[in-house]
């Protein structure tokens, strides 16, 4: 994103950077009842802007992802922004779009569409339907409270392309992401010998990181490998702690130009690279498509994103000091580490087993905030927040001298990633 020819508009001074991060409290599912999800979004935006040393009157752009319920246009009106000059939402589904939303904000800043763009995400799962039950499906409307099947099942008209697609999975009981991605890990285990203990290494390591983070929902719930293995099976091979949290909370980050950042309160974190997209035939990911090539099925689906990310950033996996890797499921962290080149294909399990992901001594301290497994599930925007904190030297699991951070978004859907750097 940097390196345009100099000029009045697109010079180096318009290079985008991250200058503010903010969040509300994170609680377990349904834990926030005194404010709406929308209020939390506004609160997180305010916190991030304040952290940057900016005022809400400075904000002229908004970006989000994951079919955000909290429309940017209402946000702009309710916060009294002087003028909304940029608003976008990523098409990448669910948590695939967190890094893309930041990259979109960066592109808006670099092309002078806006000066200060806030990327935000709020999730109060207790106030809405759980994820994974499909868009507009009949669960709520046709299944009686007692849970009986409707008397005469019949085909309905799909209201979206996605709804027509999940019709080929949901009637067979593939309701939640845990089921779809358990099938991916089963295939990975079959091909490469990945083990439960290797997935458990991700869960146990990030839980230990969360213990140092006062924001973490699971911060006071230490977990050993024995605890992990003893937890109930959800959808084989996923046990309970292979699955991320469901919780309430919101966070936001602020993107502006390096020129503007020079006057602000926090050190700017550079956006060294960003990439997004999907492999050919990957569709919406393994949640709706199971017909992609075998090598892509048993993967995070991020090889293309990784190739372009490293090329654009001008560095490679060996240059990364700390990683915040999307962890909706422990096993998919292993697949992301493979796709982004930290280990060979099929070697994600042994890589984690070696202790590589642990802070402070691992080769690649990963999810230093506790991730979605143990800090909070804010669709991975909290991974961007943690990446910024690492490069400011403000993490509760600070990697000494960290200068580069990889942040990835959801594996198993069209996805995105960022490389952040300390100026």
């Amino acid at each position, binding site marked *: 994103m940097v390196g345009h020819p100099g000029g009045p508009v697109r010079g180096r001074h318009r290079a985008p950077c991250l200058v503010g991060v903010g969040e509300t409290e994170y609680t377990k599912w349904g834990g926030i009842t005194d404010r709406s999800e929308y209020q939390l979004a506004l609160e997180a935006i305010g916190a991030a802007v304040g952290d940057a040393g900016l005022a809400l009157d400075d904000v002229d752009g908004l970006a989000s992802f994951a079919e955000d319920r909290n429309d940017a246009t209402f946000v702009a009106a309710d916060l009294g922004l002087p003028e909304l000059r940029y608003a976008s939402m990523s098409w990448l589904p669910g948590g695939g779009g967190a890094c893309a939303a930041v990259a979109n904000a960066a592109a808006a800043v670099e092309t002078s569409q806006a000066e200060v763009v806030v990327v935000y995400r709020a999730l109060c799962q207790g106030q809405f339907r759980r994820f994974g039950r499909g868009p507009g499906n009949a*669960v709520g409307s046709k299944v009686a409270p007692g849970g009986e099947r409707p008397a005469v099942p019949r085909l309905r*008209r799909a209201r979206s392309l996605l709804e027509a697609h999940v019709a*080929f999975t949901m009637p*067979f*009981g593939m309701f939640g992401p845990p089921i779809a991605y358990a099938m991916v890990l089963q*295939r990975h285990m079959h091909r490469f010998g990945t083990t439960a203990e290797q997935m458990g290494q991700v869960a146990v390591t990030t839980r230990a990181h969360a213990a140092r983070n006062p924001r973490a929902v699971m911060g006071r719930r230490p977990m050993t490998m024995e605890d992990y293995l003893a937890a109930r099976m959800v959808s084989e091979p996923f046990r309970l702690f292979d699955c991320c949290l469901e919780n309430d909370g919101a966070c936001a980050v602020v993107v502006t130009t390096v020129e503007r950042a020079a006057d602000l309160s926090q050190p700017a974190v550079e956006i060294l690279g960003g990439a997004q997209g999907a492999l050919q035939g990957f569709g919406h990911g393994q949640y709706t498509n199971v017909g992609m090539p075998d090598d892509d099925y048993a993967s995070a689906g991020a090889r293309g994103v990784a190739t372009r990310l490293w090329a654009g950033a001008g560095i490679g996996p060996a240059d990364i000091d700390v990683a915040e890797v999307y962890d909706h499921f422990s096993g998919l962290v292993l697949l992301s580490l493979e796709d982004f080149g930290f280990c060979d294909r099929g070697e994600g399990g042994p890589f984690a087993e070696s202790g590589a992901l642990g802070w402070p001594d691992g080769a690649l301290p990963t999810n230093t905030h506790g991730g979605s497994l143990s800090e909070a599930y804010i669709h991975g925007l909290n991974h961007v927040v943690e990446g910024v904190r690492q490069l400011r030297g403000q993490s509760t699991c600070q990697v000494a001298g960290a200068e580069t951070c990889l942040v990835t978004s959801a594996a198993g859907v069209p996805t995105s990633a960022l490389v952040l750097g300390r100026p």
Partner: protein
Amino acid sequence: MPMPAANAETVGWWEAAREHRLVVQRCTVCGRTRHPPGPICPGCRSTAAEWDELAGSGVVYTYTVVRQAFLPALADRLPYVVAAVELDGAGGARMVSNVVDVDPGDVSIGLRVELVWEDMGPELALPRFRPAPTAPGPTGAGR
């Protein structure tokens, strides 16, 4: 179970299923199959397609044993097996379905399966699969 929704591209598949015909959409120009059905061939971009009827035999490509009821209505079905089945004669196409009439512990990748229909009502039937007999033997009566 939540009931499926269909659009112009997929309704033909559901109508065939109602008549207990398992079909896959095949491009009539280049012969490529696609599932779920769609409006255009991703290979040659032709919009001409037909429904190929399949024998219903196949192999488990991957699977999971679901042990948590994500819907209350499913509690009495636990545990159940969700599988991606690679269907014979379908040009590599895979379908998500269930393996039924089996101890979940006996399911594995590579297991040969055969089609069994479940009528959900007069307008809807779902194709599920059960382990294929390893040797000729008496055939069961569905479920």
